[in-house]
């Protein structure tokens, strides 16, 4: 992809539900938009070129009703159990969009139903971070028809692509690797409800796109906040080699189940 002309891209998302095993072995009810009819703890990522038309089918394989929307771009569509809906949308500009289940927002998104649509205009090495926090008990409450008081939201676990430290570095989509002088693009989608403040050791990154804070485009940052449901594109051109951490500088988010350092913490690995 990315070398040809704009095209129609056909994709399928499958709403499946099971559980997410957290870093300490605790499991929580979890649902995702999988790229196949089989449950995946990660949401399927949709990659497009600028100008592409997305022809997307979303299939609800769960036993309960869901909805679908591209955040702040398309309207909400209801999907009954066993039913499917189609979304056709052209993406004219580079960016990062979050698709999600907007039902009783943010309830169903919080179950794990949030992924990214990446629209590119380059061929640089790219990495993808779907960041999210999890509060024990809230997913069960939602699935049981209860009400979550988001005013008391106090998450216990913090993940990147569904994983916490030290497992994040085993995700080749997440772990940033490259060489000095490379242009490395990092796509960040905050599908949680908390603000995260990502601190880069070793480098400043350039903000290329920020869906919620567009005034920051062009800024060079070593600590970049990401609002709830915000999409970011960060450009990293490393000027030195080494292994450097990236982590949430709300240091509570570097823990999991109140254990340090089981949280949102990964490392960049840059060769000479």
């Amino acid at each position, binding site marked *: 992809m990315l070398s040809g002309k704009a095209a129609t891209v056909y994709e399928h998302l499958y709403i499946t539900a099971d559980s997410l095993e957290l870093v300490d072995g605790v499991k929580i009810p979890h649902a995702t938009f999988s790229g196949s009819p089989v449950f995946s703890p990660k949401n399927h990522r949709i990659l497009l070129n600028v100008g592409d038309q997305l022809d997307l089918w979303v299939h609800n394989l769960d036993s309960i009703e869901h909805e679908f929307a591209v955040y702040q771009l398309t309207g909400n569509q209801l999907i009954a159990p066993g039913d499917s809906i189609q979304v056709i949308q052209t993406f004219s500009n580079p960016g990062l969009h979050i698709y999600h289940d907007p039902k009783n927002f943010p309830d169903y998104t919080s179950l794990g139903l949030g992924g990214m649509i990446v629209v590119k205009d380059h061929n640089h090495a790219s990495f993808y971070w779907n960041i999210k926090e999890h509060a024990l008990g809230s997913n069960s409450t939602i699935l049981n028809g209860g009400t979550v008081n988001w005013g008391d939201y106090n998450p216990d676990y913090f993940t990147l692509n569904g994983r916490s430290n030290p497992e994040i570095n085993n995700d080749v989509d997440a772990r940033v690797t490259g060489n000095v002088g490379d242009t490395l693009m990092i796509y960040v989608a905050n599908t949680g409800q908390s*603000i995260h403040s990502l601190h880069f050791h070793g480098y400043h990154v350039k903000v290329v796109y920020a869906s919620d804070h567009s005034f920051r485009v062009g*800024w060079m940052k070593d600590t970049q906040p990401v609002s709830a449901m915000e999409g970011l594109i960060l450009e990293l051109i490393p000027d030195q080699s080494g292994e450097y951490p990236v982590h949430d500088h709300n240091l509570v988010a570097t823990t999991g189940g109140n*254990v340090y350092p089981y949280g949102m913490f990964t490392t960049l690995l840059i060769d000479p």
Partner: protein
Amino acid sequence: MLCIPFLLFGCTSFGQADTVISLISKVDIAPQYQLHDGNKVMLMGYSNTIGGSIHLPSPTIELREGDSVELNLWNLSQGPPHTIHLHGLDVNQQNDGVPMLSFAVAHDDTGTYRFKVPHPGTYVYHCHETSVLHVQAGMYGLLIVRPQSADTLTWDGGYAFHSERAWLLTELDTNWHVDSIINHTYDPLATTHEILDYNPQHFLINGLSEHQLIGNVELNAAKDEIVYLRLAGIGYLGNQVVFPPELNATVISSDGRPIPTALQLDTLEIMPGERYGVLLQSSVDLNSVLSVDYFDLNTGSVVNTQNVNVTVEGLVGHDELQEPNEWTIYPNPSTDVITLKAPDLPAGEYEIFAITNSGMIAAHQQINLMQPKELIHLDLSDLQSGTYTIVLATNKSILIDKLILLKP
């Protein structure tokens, strides 16, 4: 070479460093740091001296752009190792202060961080050993890099200012400041560490809150004085700084880098680890407050607000004027060449700045008066029409006035 003295290994010359700084990491064995409510808590922290108390924040490190720096750490903590992470300086891996990737300094051992500081700006330093605990425990401080050219410039070619303030924003949860945490045992084989829920009760600016801010953290300025406010967040909550509109707050930098377009705003959000540079200037007398909200990053709800008194009155340098140095600029308005008249201006070195309304230096001239003089001429024919602040400065005093340039 700038050298901050230090008992045992302070001023020894290490290689070719321009600046050598030494810090001691320490822990309290009893509560000593007094909070606004009179209660005392225990801290971990960095200090310049063996015997002194630990303060919040730790000593501010001040460096000069381009310096080669050796930063020595002597760990007298009695327990766990410590490090210094130079947050935002982008030092190499060896000197990054992350235990598993660079090095940690064990109890009664020393370590040295070697690095350069190429970018003027506002940074922080903190311990990265079990960082969630050690940062909250008090192991953090500000680090300021000043430009090569002048202490009153934000960076070379940047904005001029008359005075500066630096505020480090954080919180304190007293339940994390008990002996079992501050003096926690160190097991070199342990790879994890349990923490308590974080529910801070104290909301700090430079380690102080509530009535402690009065007389210590305030914004007192003269009319038209340009104040450079450095702001940094090192807590686990978000901050929202609300400026009185009369201060004309303008954000010019973040994380040690200029931002492409300055932002004029009344409210600035600062998230954990971020830093901002803000210019403040009031053209009117003012008695007001600047509020700092502390909000939960999960809910967005404001859990506390600290108020900083703001007073703007008088004229910049008013107390420093030497009678009868009533200075004038004429003609005003002018088209090109102006004359600065200041009777009995003593011999010495002077700098003259023409500063735009947005704080940019539009013209700069250095003058060395070999003998007392009362008239100085300045050619501003290259400048565009507009209102400028004309600053005549020595190392002891500063004279300021407004000038209107009207080009034909």
